């Protein structure tokens, strides 16, 4: 099982060029099997432990995980768009990538007749093609042992006393830019505004540390390399549980939501299975498990959080301002922003 997953992943790059011309799914054609393209690691394990095994296995639906990164997953969907049958039934994507895929006309429309649990999805997260799975607001994080007076706003990070002490994830560049846009223009979608770019460059000029992965930010806080950063609340809770000294502050100008979920490609081989999968991951029990283990907030209104996780994820009073970006706008800005980031922040 593991081997087939790894092969599929390695095979992707090697055969990407040929993929548009060849069908690659002989084995997965059986009715009782659904192929989900997902991240590996904790996320995949939690899906297996809380969705695949307890909910879908009794329904005789076998789940095959196609583990890999988001970018190749997107590329694969695009590459297979003209095939009658794509290789994945369910594809895990961040909201903005899902909007991109939808604009390219790759996605199967979704509604509560196909996926009944979509009726429970929080109103601000609903779309006609997306199964929102987990979400978390972006917050300022800090090391309480070393920072008695933590920064409150984005502009606070420009203070010379934080020179070389602030870290963000390089892969989360778009969220950093949205936070800058919120601070500079009041609109999270204006990541390409000159004010936004100027503010981001200033932050970069203050010795901003870029981390190649989300986990390495936590390692940076732990080793004392940085004291402050931008991260989703979910990670703060994971790190707290792992004993890393870290606390979170909500940004008064607004906290962009990191939203991740699942889509069904138009050419999915097993659409009923895919709908069943989406419905299962929206089940309260599954949602509560992701909150407890990964610190993400449930995307449905019927999964109440109790106990320790309830306390950790409880919002302060007054309630923080949560911002859902306009994905139609930000989707188009992905490419240009990524290039701007590469040339001006990474190379700055």
């Amino acid at each position: 099982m593991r081997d087939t997953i790894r092969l599929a992943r390695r095979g992707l790059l090697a055969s990407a060029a040929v993929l548009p011309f060849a069908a690659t799914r002989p084995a997965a054609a059986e009715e009782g099997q659904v192929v989900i393209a997902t991240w590996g690691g904790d996320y995949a394990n939690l899906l297996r432990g809380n969705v695949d095994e307890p909910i879908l296995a009794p329904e005789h639906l076998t789940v095959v995980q196609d583990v890999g990164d988001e970018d190749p997953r997107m590329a694969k969907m695009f590459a297979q768009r003209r095939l009658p049958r794509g290789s994945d039934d369910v594809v895990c994507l961040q909201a903005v990538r899902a909007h991109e895929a939808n604009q390219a006309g790759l996605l199967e429309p979704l509604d509560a007749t196909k996926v009944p649990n979509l009726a429970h999805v929080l109103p601000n997260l609903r779309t006609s093609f997306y199964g929102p799975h987990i979400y978390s607001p972006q917050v300022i994080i800090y090391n309480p042992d070393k920072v008695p007076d933590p920064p409150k706003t984005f502009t606070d990070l420009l203070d010379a006393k934080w020179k070389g002490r602030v870290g963000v994830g390089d892969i989360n560049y778009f969220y950093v830019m949205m936070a800058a846009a919120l601070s500079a223009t009041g609109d999270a979608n204006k990541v390409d505004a000159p004010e936004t770019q100027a503010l981001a460059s200033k932050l970069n000029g203050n010795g901003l540390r870029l981390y190649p992965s989300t986990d390495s930010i936590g390692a940076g806080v732990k080793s004392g390399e940085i004291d402050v950063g931008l991260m989703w609340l979910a990670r703060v809770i994971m790190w707290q549980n792992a004993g890393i000294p870290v606390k979170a502050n909500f940004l008064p100008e607004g906290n962009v939501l990191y939203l991740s979920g699942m889509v069904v490609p138009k050419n999915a081989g097993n659409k009923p299975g895919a709908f069943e999968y989406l419905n299962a991951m929206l089940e309260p029990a599954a949602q509560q498990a992701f909150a407890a283990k990964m610190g993400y907030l449930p995307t449905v209104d019927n999964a109440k959080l109790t106990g320790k996780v309830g306390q950790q994820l409880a919002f302060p009073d007054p309630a923080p301002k949560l911002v859902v970006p306009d994905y139609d706008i930000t989707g188009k800005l992905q490419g240009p922003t990524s290039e701007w980031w590469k040339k001006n922040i990474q190379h700055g």
Partner: protein
Amino acid sequence: MATTGQALRPARAAAPLLAPATLVVAVMLVAPLLLVLRFSLDRYDPTELMIETVTGANYLRFAADPFYRAVLRTTLGVAVACTVLCLLLGVPIGYRLARMRGRWKTACVLATVLPLVVGSTVRAVGWMILFARGGVIDATLRGLTGHGLELMYTTTAVVSGIVSINLPFVILTVQSAIETIDAELEEAAQSLGAAPGRAFWRVVWPLALPGITVAAILCFILAMNAYATPYLLGGPRFQMMAPLLFWEFGTNNNWPFASALALVLMTTTLVLTAAGNLLIPRRYRI
């Protein structure tokens, strides 16, 4: 005429036997290359990805943008530094290994080959542990001198990482080249009055030069195309061609531009390899 015909006959007879191999090479090597060349002339579109056309826009974009030229310069600098370091370390070690005998030699060759069993990514992770803040080097220096040394995400880290990966190849190539040179030649040179170092330069070095050239070329090509090491040890701010083109390919889905970058990288590597070979005296060239 008759002799020519006779000479041709075995070749003709062998042709059907070679055909499958030729076909495999063509399909596995040439076809993807041609595909990349074709892609590099296409145009990128955010929703359609690739629009078939014939345009030099991707190459122009590379040539016109100082950012990309800087990345190519960094890549070249790292590759040259790695090649020089690998030769400085690899030639003496390869020489030593070639002149060793018996059980020690087996052990040392094994010790050289063993790192190759561990993938480059895993080794990069090893270096991360060494280089990281609070890592082995930082902590040791901090304990000894009070000042730590952060090497993570520096050029030093990338070059060390690539050298550690390429060194076994260089050592083994140099070793096999030197093993073909009879040790008696050095003794002869010494008996004629050449000190050991001089005997090496006058006798072993010129004879080993073709092998050392192969080692240098191998090292240079590997360094030019390094991916995991600059990505993991260089961090987001360290830009080399291979991670850049993969980013264009994977993250931006801009296959045409990624293809153009790939061909620029490949051409630069080939041209410099050929140029380097020209610097070698003619009779030692490969």
